[in-house]
């Protein structure tokens, strides 16, 4: 009897796991939230300088990256649905697409930053000295906020790649996929942060 009970008892609490993930996401919200408040304060102080500085960001790259992230979020949620329907291979393909889209986002970001650095716009860079206070604050916030966001993309991609290994090895299945769900929650949060970063940095006119 006691032996049977021990076998039948699965130590798993999906609801608790999800709640833990959400609690972590709240701390992420406050981390980025503090920066958004900082951004708002400086934009209040230097509204005109922010407009001038934002003109030099490439709206097209920003828009392409937005679409990439939205699509990668879609494929994560589709992958969870696929796994629930026991379509393991399809689920892995969808997650593979997410990884490719996330990677493409980072490549775009690399070229974007490279172009700015090439023009001497970086902390203590030659062009920075010619800029007004507001513009240099704008670029400071731009590097910190998009940089921290890119760091989250890297972590999210690693998280998803781990989940792909788990699915391939049968450790995450249609009946047992809370870890994959949590990876999805993280990825969607990173997507939401970008939804706010994009208009605030690229679309001021």
């Amino acid at each position: 009897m006691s032996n049977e009970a021990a076998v039948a008892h699965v130590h798993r609490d999906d609801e608790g796991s999800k709640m833990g993930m959400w609690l972590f996401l709240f701390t992420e919200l406050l981390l980025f939230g503090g920066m958004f408040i900082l951004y708002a304060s400086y934009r209040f102080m230097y509204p005109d300088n922010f407009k001038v500085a934002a003109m030099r960001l490439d709206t097209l790259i920003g828009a392409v990256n937005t679409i990439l992230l939205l699509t990668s979020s879609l494929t994560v949620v589709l992958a969870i649905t696929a796994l629930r329907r026991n379509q393991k291979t399809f689920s892995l393909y969808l997650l593979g697409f997410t990884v490719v889209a996330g990677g493409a986002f980072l490549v775009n970001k690399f070229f974007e930053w490279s172009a700015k650095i090439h023009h001497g716009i970086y902390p203590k860079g030659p062009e920075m000295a010619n800029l007004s206070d507001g513009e240099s604050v704008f670029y400071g916030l731009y590097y910190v906020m998009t940089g921290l966001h890119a760091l989250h993309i890297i972590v999210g991609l690693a998280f998803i790649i781990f989940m792909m290994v788990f699915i391939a090895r049968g450790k995450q299945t249609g009946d047992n996929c809370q870890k994959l769900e949590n990876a999805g929650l993280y990825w969607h949060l990173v997507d939401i942060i970008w939804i706010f970063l994009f208009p605030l940095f690229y679309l001021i006119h």
Partner: protein
Amino acid sequence: MSDNTNTHTHEHPGYGLYILVWAGLVGLTTITVALAGFNLASLTVVVAMAIAVIKSLLVTNYFMHVRTDSAVFKIFIFVCLAIFLTMIVLTFFDLTYRFPLK
């Protein structure tokens, strides 16, 4: 069997709904980019933020499944957002006092 391992009793939406939500998100992105070309003066930020809020509501409710989550999660998220919004509103009171809008 513990109740906790049996949380997925509700129906899960199919692929179609998610693709529809994604289309909506892409559409809203197009609208924000297009609107940025117009001069809406001080309304520009408000409109852009309103669209961003709608987009994040779509992501949380559908992609993050909050819509079908139990009430505990909804209350949790609501309280967290309420605290965050209070911080933002209080900061803005201070900012508008120091730097009146033109």
